[in-house]
């Protein structure tokens, strides 16, 4: 990933903004895509192999258990034969037990070797998955970068063909200020209109001229009370 990011930065600093001068050359892109496909293929194979080996391991486990079960069953038979004084029969059964135990041990050993292979393939799968995620991320960065460059070039060409040039930040700011002033004017106008409609502006004017209806009312009530004091 770091190498891809460095390539992009180096190319950018070299002022390679022209369309067609792709930042990471398309050859590099193809190599990355090929690596991605190879990794995907390897991962697929490793997973198939893993599944087959795990099935084999499960089958071996079953066989081992079956040998162990047979051995313990025969042990009971042998004990019964000994109790019944059938020494010859007991010996014959003991031979069978040895056979089961030997096969069980052999199968266990095979399974252990198999288990080691499974572990190593699991590790391989994990590595491949990580690698694949890395490639995908790299490819995404490269492709997005190219897309952004092509897109901005397209926007510039288009705007340049419509207007004399892309408007400068100062011109944009001027337009923003004009609009904000217009909005403010509209706001002031609507507040004024509202005051006129509710008569609030007249009350304000009267108050400013020292004519306060509310104060007058209080004064007249007070005067009335003073005229007729409590008896």
């Amino acid at each position, binding site marked *: 990933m770091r190498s891809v990011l460095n390539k992009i930065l180096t190319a950018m600093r070299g002022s390679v*903004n022209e369309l067609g001068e792709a930042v990471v050359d398309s050859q590099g892109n193809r190599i990355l895509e090929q690596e991605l496909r190879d990794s995907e293929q390897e991962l697929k194979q490793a997973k198939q192999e893993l599944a087959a080996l795990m099935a084999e391991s499960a089958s071996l486990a079953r066989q081992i258990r079956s040998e162990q079960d047979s051995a313990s069953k025969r042990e009971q038979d042998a004990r019964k034969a000994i109790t019944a004084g059938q020494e010859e029969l007991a010996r014959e059964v003991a031979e069978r037990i040895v056979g089961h135990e030997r096969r069980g041990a052999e199968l266990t050993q095979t399974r252990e070797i198999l288990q080691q292979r499974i572990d190593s393939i699991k590790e391989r799968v994990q590595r491949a998955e990580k690698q694949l995620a890395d490639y995908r991320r790299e490819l*995404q960065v490269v*492709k*997005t970068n190219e*897309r*952004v*460059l*092509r*897109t*901005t*070039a*397209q*926007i510039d*060409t*288009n705007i340049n063909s419509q207007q004399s040039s*892309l408007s*400068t*930040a*100062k011109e*944009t*700011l001027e*337009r*923003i200020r004009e*609009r904000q002033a217009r909005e403010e004017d509209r706001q002031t106008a609507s507040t004024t209109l509202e005051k006129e409609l509710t008569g609030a502006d007249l009350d304000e004017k009267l108050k400013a001229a020292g004519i306060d209806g509310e104060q007058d009312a209080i004064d007249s009530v007070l005067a009335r009370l003073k005229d007729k004091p409590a008896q």
Partner: protein
Amino acid sequence: MDIQTLTLTLGDSTHAGRTFDVMPIAGEEPVLQVTVSGAEETPVYVTVTDTQILCLAYLFEEQELLPQRVNELHDNMLRLSVPMPLSSLGKTGDHYVVYGALSPTSGAAEIMQELVTLAENAIDLLQTFEDYLA
């Protein structure tokens, strides 16, 4: 959401009291110029790829800046980029941009929210960084 669906959806939608004016930009790449009502000065450009919907608005060009204050501006841009909602600051070619990337599975409401936020942020950023212009 592909570019055609987006064009049709934005054309007759309102979001948070805003309307959208959509104009396709001619060329090989599917690009839309979206003007958000109440923030007409800073159009947002939208392009849809397999992995993301990229929305960006232009701020200023390198040559418009006071050269002696560029480092300070960069520092401020990096600091502001983190807390700004749904927008990051960046540079493509000589253009400084404010942009946001959405998942291609985003719905109309998310995209409209992004467009409104970007257009407003672009205005706020221009006014904030006005002192750095030559």
